[in-house]
């Protein structure tokens, strides 16, 4: 049986997702997420040794496309959607570190 969800777990997940939560929101989501995880615990308590884990509702495998070119979007259209651009590229605020 998994340990119950703690407030600091929710705070950490929120931080990873770049979500800023108030103290009240933290309490609320700790309770709500806790209820969802408890439901998962109910399922984990069942005898399911013979059931294959499912991650997708459809029993499909190997859905693929041929390696064939399709039209791209126009650069002008694409950059017009961005707040800022320069030299045909998207301009973003300076990056604080390198990509993970």
């Amino acid at each position, binding site marked *: 049986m998994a340990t119950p969800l703690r407030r600091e777990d929710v705070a950490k997940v929120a931080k990873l997702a770049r979500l800023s939560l108030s103290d009240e929101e933290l309490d609320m989501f700790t309770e709500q997420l806790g209820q969802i995880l408890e439901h998962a615990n109910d399922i984990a308590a069942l005898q399911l040794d013979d059931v294959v884990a499912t991650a997708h509702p459809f029993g499909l495998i*190997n859905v*693929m496309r041929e390696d064939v*070119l*399709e039209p791209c979007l126009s650069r002008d259209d*694409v950059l017009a959607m961005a707040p800022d651009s320069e030299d*045909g590229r998207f301009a973003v605020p300076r*990056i604080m570190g390198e990509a*993970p």
Partner: protein
Amino acid sequence: MTLPDGWEMVVGLEVHTELKTTTKMFCGCANVFGAEPNTRVCAVCLGLPGSLPVLNVRAVELAMAIGSAVHSTISPSTFHRKNYFYPDMPKDFQISQYDLPINVGGYVDLPDGSRVSIERAHLEEDTGKSTHLGASGRIHGAERSLVDYNRSGVPLVEIVSGPDIRSSAQARLYASELRGILIATGASDGRMEEGSMRIDANVSVRHANEPFGTRCEIKNLNSLRSLGRAIDFEALRQIDLLNAGGVVRQETRHWDETLGATSTMRTKEEAEDYRYFREPDLVDLAPDLAWQERVRDGLGPMPAERRAALAARLNEPTSTQLDALQVVVDLGFDVLVAAALDADVDAGLVLARAANELAADAENIHSLTTDAFITTLLMEQNGELSATQAKTVLLELLAHGGDPRAIANAKGFEQLSADSLGDVVAALIQANPDEWSRFREGDEKLAQFFIGQVMKVTKGQANGKAVIAELNSRR
């Protein structure tokens, strides 16, 4: 480089290779290097809301080819989202494979007889490319960053080795052998300078036979030279730290080629910080045995086998010739070299020209026909061209194609006729009577003196062997 007494380095490499598909991994945008920024992008690779990825069958096939070539087990696999925030990844997650990769296990045998195990070789998508603008030119201190998404969604295979490597020389050998294998499968062009093959190195140190130490991951290794230097630097840094009573922190470090040093980039994320979860927009991948077999049957011979085939045609190859063989095979010049050997060109000459002149401009190899290659080498062998002239002709053939004789004529590489060479030699003998008598008495070193003099007079148009023949005929 040797480490201080009693220390051993433990290295594992993560090699990322872009796959040579026509289109990207999950959309029909062209997978090309060097296009105008943001001209090969669509809703999928820009991560626009509502867009859905569809897996490229060719990317799967090439990943299977790589797996087969490194003796992996091709396995049923799934895709996950690796979540993190960085502007070169507009979806805020990278589609990758996590607990169930397409290729599991395997190994690569190296020319020195050692074997490096492969843990996995999985599929994932590449990110966009950011340029950092600012006074310093480095990421730290940049004012703003510009992003080009042409590379976003280009298919990659990441090949993860076991912690089996024990020296920087072995790391380079492994990377070089793997590069040859990747090129041989047709999955990659192996161009490290263009970033189509990139390496991260996990380095730790320990006293021999003790448990593994804490490792650091070094990023930004864009050449075999950087790889070797960075590993040596990092191993010594860790040993100094431990000897001084410090501890190694698990972290990601950046290699600075100019400084010749690694520096902390960030402390290592835990896998759970990436909040991996199944990519709900993609179904499982499970290539059936018939498909796996078709891919395996489609593979040509791998570099080790091809080197052996060429080496078997050499009479007691020297270490220089064996090194040249490796270059020749990695670059796929086997057929050209074999044809030249068939045409009775001297093996040493063939290998030297292939591993040097052809390798220097390998991208243009398509401009050089087998006939032109053989003709140029035979002209050099027969003394019609000097070594310098032959190299010039080869480089010209690579750059613009054409006929070697016509190029030699156009460049004024007149064949120095036997008569005029004879005249030159006769004049030099007369001008240098002491040297000539010593040569006649058996001092062979003086042949080099006369060759040098002939080259000076003929401005390098004479052939060394022809000069020696001329000298000997007058002895």
